[in-house]
């Protein structure tokens, strides 16, 4: 168990700077998820923590120890890889014992830890099998078992669910979360899947191009994204963005329709007629379908319907913006239908179109 702190971290690959200047504090026993699109530097950051990548500036602390230049083996961390990286020629038991043998642990201790970990992960039945005789989900668990037996200060997960099918991914996601609650160790989990981030994290770190965009609890990131990137990245389907202008007490959309300003946080800070380009961000689930002719709301024409069972996604175009609303399946909408959409009060966000930053 240990806290992690990264200070003024710089990482370059040759001429290319992938992490320009990064600070991050992860308290002891926290489950942190690094999330961002491909190439945002999240995996590099994890590999820096692991000691698999060197840094070009700054400081990496694990607990009280400065680990710049400390080899991976001496950092007391464990890592679960995307492709599991199990030793294919060793049995599950040998895979789990390998690190302990290298540390010089005695046989009885190794056996005790393997038994304990295999009970925790329910892999006791195939300790003598080789990885190729296991399913993807079983390999995943063995990879975690290999990490657990070492009783490390920090667990690192590098997109460990991306090789699993959707159903299994949900199951393993829950398993990892349950495990994290049981063993309460600092965990850093990298993913590009915002659902994994939302469901598992104590705190989420959203990254883009090597720069941390926002750090916060899942609900914080979801409800109060600091910029359009975070707002668009977290949440599925993604938040809709409509260009608007301020007109009196209202926000005017490209189509001429208006949304009452009092329903939108941050509206009070705006003044009418200013040049500033403003974007109204509304999540699909915060648009209520009111049915045709209810007067209130913004009228739209349904382009496409995606029934999900519990909800229905309707695609529509407002001005030149393609958008999505998540509405009740009871509305029984079909392409071509007209419907009025009402933004849920207090849920929409305003952004500065130029900087992308949220207007609080």
């Amino acid at each position, binding site marked *: 168990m240990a806290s992690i702190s990264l200070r003024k971290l710089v990482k370059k690959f040759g001429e290319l700077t992938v992490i320009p200047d990064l600070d991050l504090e992860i308290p002891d026993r926290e489950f942190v998820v690094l999330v961002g699109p491909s190439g945002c530097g999240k995996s590099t950051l994890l590999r820096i923590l*692991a*000691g*698999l990548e060197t840094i070009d500036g700054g400081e990496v602390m694990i607990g009280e120890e400065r680990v710049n230049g400390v*080899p*991976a*083996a*001496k950092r007391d*961390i*464990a*890592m679960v*890889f*995307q*492709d599991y*990286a*199990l*030793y*294919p*020629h060793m049995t599950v038991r040998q895979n789990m014992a*390998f*690190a302990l043998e*290298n*540390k010089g642990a005695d046989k009885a201790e190794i056996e005790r830890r393997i038994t304990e970990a295999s009970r925790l992960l329910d892999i006791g039945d195939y300790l003598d099998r*080789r990885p*190729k005789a296991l399913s993807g989900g079983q390999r995943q668990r063995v990879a975690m078992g*290999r990490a657990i037996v*070492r009783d490390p200060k920090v667990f690192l997960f590098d997109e460990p669910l991306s090789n699993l099918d959707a159903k299994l991914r949900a199951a393993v996601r829950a398993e990892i979360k349950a495990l994290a609650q049981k063993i309460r160790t600092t965990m850093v989990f990298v993913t590009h899947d915002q659902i994994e981030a939302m469901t598992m994290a104590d705190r989420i770190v959203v990254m883009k191009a090597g720069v941390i965009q926002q750090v916060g609890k899942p609900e914080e990131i979801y409800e109060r994204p600091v910029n359009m990137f975070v707002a668009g990245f977290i949440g599925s389907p993604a938040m809709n963005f409509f260009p608007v202008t301020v007109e009196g007490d209202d926000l005017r959309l490209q189509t001429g329709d208006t949304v009452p300003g009092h329903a939108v946080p941050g509206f009070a800070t705006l003044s009418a007629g200013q040049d500033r380009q403003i974007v109204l961000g509304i999540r699909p689930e915060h648009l209520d379908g009111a049915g045709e002719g209810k007067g209130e709301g913004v009228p739209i024409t349904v382009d496409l319907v995606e029934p999900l069972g519990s909800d229905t996604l309707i695609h529509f175009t407002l001005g030149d913006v393609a958008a999505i609303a998540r509405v009740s399946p009871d509305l029984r909408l079909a392409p071509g239908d007209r419907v009025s959409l009402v933004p849920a009060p207090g849920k929409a966000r305003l952004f500065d179109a130029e900087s992308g930053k949220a207007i609080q």
Partner: protein
Amino acid sequence: MEKKNEARLELASLSLPAMIYTIAMIGFPFIYTIWMSFHATTAAQQLVFNGLGNYSHLVSDGEFWHGLVVTFYLYFLSLALQLFFGTYLALLLFRSKRLPGIVRSLFISPFLIPGVVTGMMWLVILDPSLGAANYVLTSLGLPASDWLASPTWVVPTIAIIDTWQWAPYVALIVLGGLQSLPPSVYEAAEIDGASRRKVLFRITLPLLLPTIMTATILRSVDLLRFFDLIYITTQGGPANASDTLNIYGFRVGFEFFQFGYASALMVTLSVIVLGAVLILNQLRNAVAW
């Protein structure tokens, strides 16, 4: 139904040239050799059927057993040397990624040289009075030797020459295996605190075993049928110290003109090669991961 027949006809016509080639170039000589092995050659060079006569002669033929021993001695010695140095060379080449391509190519070029040329080249190198080998040895204060004329040293010497030529081939195969090993496994080993030595012996070499077995199979087929290099350098001598089964069979056929018996020897050798390949194949499956 008609369409199916048409497709079959097309398939047959397309594969016919290959089938004719296989039958004419492989099947016929092979079956003819088996047929000959049941015949004796008369003084008038006539083939007469004598059943299993050649095979029963073979069992009591001291030269055959001697050939078998020499064949396996040379086989195991060469194979061990070639696997060891081939794997070693592959690991070196894999580590030295900065080495220019041309140098890497030079390292692995010996097996491109025809066996006859290799033999001639080494005859010069090993020449007892003019050769470079003895010059180097005597410069180092070691005794000179006529390597290919010594009944004790002739087989190891041939094994070394063959290793010079074929270890790079093994290296090429093993290098391919090394390049396809999963990098994340090495990172896992790094995190697991494995020393370089442990990584080599517990991770790299076990993971390379299937590749090394493939190289073993390919080299086994050649080594059990060892011929050209011996024929150029010693012709089976001195006395019959390097007389492998293949060389012995050649002499029986083309020096003594006993084609029937020579055929029986070659059929036996073929069975040995086939058996070795089958066994090694099983072993390769056993070490696959």
